[in-house]
């Protein structure tokens, strides 16, 4: 496995997998499935959004409560599949920057908000309120996204297969980005 094609694949799978997990948890998928360790309710995320004290109208909070996890889920699935890879990676960067801006504003205003990010799993930052740890974690995710944009989808990506089909007999090397 070449470094230039293997690394993007690993980044895609790790980042995409985490986003699929996070998005589906926020949408309450595991609560419906009865998987207690991953159970979460959209209400938890709605309250976390409210905790940012941004004065959002209720209708917008309602839409964001579902649109953000759906965004995570779509980006995650596309990254794992390697379809529209760079677009999905840019979507992740935008999401992470938006989260980072929100967390920074909480820190400046001295507001404690519990992170429902990965439900009971409390991945990476444990039980602490949104703060430096989450900021660093989200920056890390955003950098992974930047690496995917720069390096392309790597190997085992749908983008690659579509590129091959679109240009049969082309001299493209295996793993070469197609976007």
């Amino acid at each position, binding site marked *: 496995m070449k470094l230039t094609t293997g690394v993007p694949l690993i980044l895609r799978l790790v980042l995409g997998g985490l986003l699929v997990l996070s998005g589906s948890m926020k949408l309450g998928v595991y609560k419906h499935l009865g998987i207690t360790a991953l159970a979460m309710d959209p209400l938890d995320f709605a309250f976390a959004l409210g905790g940012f004290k941004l004065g959002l109208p209720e209708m917008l909070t309602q839409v964001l409560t579902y649109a953000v996890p759906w965004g995570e889920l779509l980006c995650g699935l596309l990254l794992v599949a390697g379809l529209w890879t760079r677009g*999905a990676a840019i979507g992740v960067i935008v999401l992470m920057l938006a989260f980072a801006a929100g967390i920074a504003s909480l820190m400046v205003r001295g507001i404690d908000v519990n992170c429902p990010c990965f439900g009971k799993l409390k991945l990476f930052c444990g039980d602490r309120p949104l703060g430096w740890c989450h900021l660093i974690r989200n920056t890390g995710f955003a950098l992974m996204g930047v690496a995917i944009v720069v390096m392309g989808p790597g190997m085992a990506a749908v983008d690659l297969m579509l590129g091959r089909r679109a240009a049969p007999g082309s001299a493209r090397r295996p793993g070469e980005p197609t976007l």
Partner: protein
Amino acid sequence: MLGKALTQACCIGALAVAIGAVHAAMSPVQLQVAPQPEPTLPVKQPAPPQGPLGTPAPVPVPAPQPALEPVAGGMVSIEQIRAMQDAEPVQFVDARNASEFAKGHLPAAVLLSPDMFAAGLPEAAMTLDRGFPVVVYCTGGQCDSSKLVAIRLQQIGFSRLYIYEGGFDAWKAAGMRIDVPAGAAR
């Protein structure tokens, strides 16, 4: 290359918002506690004062008492909680996390933090009596977990729910009694 990727990102974003809007329209989350009955405030009937030799003393005209206005959205103040306690038992629910609860809580409070509802109905909720008022609180100030827990309790059939917005900090600052578990640092 980047232009195409940006177009794709915009499409993904638009799709997420569209699906999110439809999802929100189909199953909106309950963001507010539904209107609650006003707290039951007792009307105290003072015992008739006795004059010398058992003769009734002249009845003094009671001074007008300041009205305890219920706060909108099921919010109650310390004064309202005390008035409710004069009428009937009031159950306290602590919506903070376990470590904060262990350092001290309102009298006989039950720990029910929002994440305890993730796996369904927590056992602690079953110890509450639905016939008596339940006052939910968290740290106070900007915390939202009391509202979140109140909504959860409402969803499982509790109807006499109130939120003490001042929370633990204001209760303690007012010099009210708190329970500190043995071994907890004061």
